[in-house]
């Protein structure tokens, strides 16, 4: 083990001697495997990645075990729920914790104050042990259903010992019920949406560009754009293709320019802008990763059945998580070869985690009695017993 430490050392030595270029990893990516907090080289090709703040989202990013720097992710969500917003908060909170510069478009400080806090205690020693314990358990069971690379996530931390382990945490666990105490100073940069008659995006892009240009060269930036094109935030003209697409194209250029320093996560209300429309498709093409969240409709009966005490239901999925495009992987023309792509994925949001896992219907056989009982109990004897119907 001690994967990370060794890797850091490896990354340094080729930087000093250019002849020893690693055969598998692209040359320009190798030096960026520097010990910047919150980044680590991808196990596939060594390009620097950073965490999305959501372990299971990291794990489905085509084996890179993180979001490769210089890439963007567009998360569409249909319906009126805000699961994508939770993903955004984790992403932003992870950035704040890692000391990255977080840029939020269109949101005020209230949004920043509501970022989830770290779930564990501050006590490093105990946390390290706890984490190690937890990881071991999670590791064992994750093999049953979750994706392979998610295992990799936690393992460096416990193995490198207590104090070092804390420093090497790539992805923290956040608790939605807690509040992150922002470091003094400007941990988050709030980029307002200008109220202009023209394109509001040019200003945003310029603002962002300025912020990045004046920051120190080694700093990592995260761009958070909640509810792009939502009428609550943006003027109606913003959704015109000739307004929003140049913005995303420019953002793509910016991401490529700072390909070792910037990532972006954008959410989009799909109910207002369906995927079948041309604009959204272009937005998706211009983004590096595209995910779609389709929450299951809320069912009163099911929620009651949950409260009726079937213990399995802790992991009841709350919606379908569709992967349309993965960063780097699809760009290269891949498709189908990565683990988990093309399978039905479902997400579950709980207080501490956003889990994306394979979706399967609960087993029906052998458990029908219990299910019927639960449903009957929940619906208040509306359904007659089976025995009552049979003569």
């Amino acid at each position, binding site marked *: 083990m001690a994967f990370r430490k060794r890797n850091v050392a490896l990354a340094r030595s*080729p*930087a*000093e001697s*250019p002849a020893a*270029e690693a055969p*598998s990893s*692209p*040359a*320009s990516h*190798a*030096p*960026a495997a520097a010990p910047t907090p919150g980044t680590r080289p991808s196990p*596939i090709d060594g390009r620097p990645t950073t965490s999305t703040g959501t372990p299971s989202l990291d794990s489905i990013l085509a*084996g890179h075990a993180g979001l490769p720097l210089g890439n963007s992710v567009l998360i569409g969500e249909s319906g009126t729920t805000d699961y994508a917003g939770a993903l955004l908060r984790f992403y932003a909170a992870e950035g704040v914790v890692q000391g990255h510069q977080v840029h939020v478009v269109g949101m005020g400080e209230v949004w920043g104050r509501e970022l989830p806090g770290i779930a564990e205690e501050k006590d490093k020693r105990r946390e390290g042990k706890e984490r190690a314990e937890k990881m071991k358990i999670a590791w064992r069971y994750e093999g049953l259903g979750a994706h392979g690379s998610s295992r990799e996530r936690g393992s460096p931390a416990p193995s490198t010992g207590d104090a070092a382990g804390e420093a090497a945490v790539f992805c923290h666990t956040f608790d939605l019920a807690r509040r992150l105490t922002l470091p003094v100073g400007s941990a988050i940069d709030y980029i307002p949406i200008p109220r202009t008659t023209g394109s509001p995006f*040019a200003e945003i*892009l*310029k603002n962002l*560009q*300025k912020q990045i*240009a004046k920051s120190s*060269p080694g700093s990592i930036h995260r761009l958070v754009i909640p509810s792009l094109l939502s009428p609550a935030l943006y003027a109606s003209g913003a959704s015109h*293709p*000739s307004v929003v*697409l*140049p*913005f995303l*194209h*420019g953002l*793509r*250029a*910016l991401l*490529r*320019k700072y*390909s070792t320093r910037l990532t972006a996560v954008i959410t989009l209300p799909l109910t207002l802008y369906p*995927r*079948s*429309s*041309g*604009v*959204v*498709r*272009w937005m*998706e*093409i*211009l983004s590096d990763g*595209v995910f779609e969240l389709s929450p299951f409709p809320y069912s009163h009966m099911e929620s009651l059945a949950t409260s009726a005490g079937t213990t399995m239901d802790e992991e009841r999925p709350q919606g379908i998580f569709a992967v*349309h*495009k993965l960063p780097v992987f*699809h*760009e*290269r*023309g*891949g*498709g*189908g*070869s990565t683990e988990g*792509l*093309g*399978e039905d994925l479902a997400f579950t949001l709980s207080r501490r985690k956003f889990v994306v896992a394979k979706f399967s219907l609960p087993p029906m056989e052998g458990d029908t009695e219990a299910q019927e009982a639960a449903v009957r109990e929940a619906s208040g004897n509306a359904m007659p017993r089976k025995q009552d119907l049979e003569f």
Partner: protein
Amino acid sequence: MPPTSRIPPLLQPFVRTPKNESLLLLTSTLDASANWLLTRFLCDALGSGQKDNDNGGAKNVVLVSWMNDYEFWRQESRKGTGLDLGGLRTLGRFAFVDGLSGLFLPAAEDGADQQRPQSLPAAQPGVPATRGPQSLPLRGPPGRTTPATATAQAAPRAPTSQPGLYALSSTSLDHINATVTAAIASLRPSPAAPRTLVILDNPDILLACVPGLTPASLTSFFLGLHTQPSVSHVLIHLQSDLALLAPPERPSPLQIAQQNLVVRTAHMSAKVLGVRVLDTGVARDVSGVLRVTVNRESWADIATVGEGAEGGAVQAPEEGGSEVLYKVNGDGSVRVFERGAGAAA
């Protein structure tokens, strides 16, 4: 990966440009990117796969990309096909026009940053070495000398420091045409590679972004490029997602324009290659389907009636349209096989 297998034999006829001068259309969708195929076109035209140089397939190439920067193409083609674009650039066989970096990104005060990515590929052999402490002082001074860099930008990014690297800074077709023409003119034709292949990667983004642009003006831009004396082929890569093409009951102007453009270009093209994912869902060992349709009635042939027969003979292998499956591996190599032959190959 032996060097001879850079382009799988089954793929060879697909990426070989027809003998006649012609337009070629390549379509792709959101989840089936055609970048891997474009690098194969680059490889075939630039003659890295030298094993059959009988055909005279070697060409100079101008790649105009609106979706990816030079760095991406350099790495992809090196990884996938072992092509050294940097070296070919200095040889005058390859030129790149960057339609991404400066097109919509306001280049107000980032003169310093504009130079940074461009200077990166220059130091190709020693990129890892120069990235370290030296990048710090480099980034400082150009930021302060903004007026100087601004004037440098006003010139159409002449190949002073970077031979064969151009950038688009405006969406006007005149500007694009001028830049691409300059790029074509910068190439040095040789007896082995007398003509030029122009690859336009996603010019349809212009159609989506620029309000006044019509599909007709774009296609006439394509044709204008094609009529340049040194250009023999123009390969156009367009998006053909269903969401962009088949408008539902109430199509948006964007969809109408895109469909218009794709259909127009398809009719003009001698060969249409389409990349898409499997219709039946995702498979572990298949990335997607590559379909080729040869347009035997193309009016490029009509224009040059005399030599029509020869062109027909060359394209015989895939006449009438054929489909193969492909799989892009993690290391950038690609495997192409017939339907049903996946396990055997």
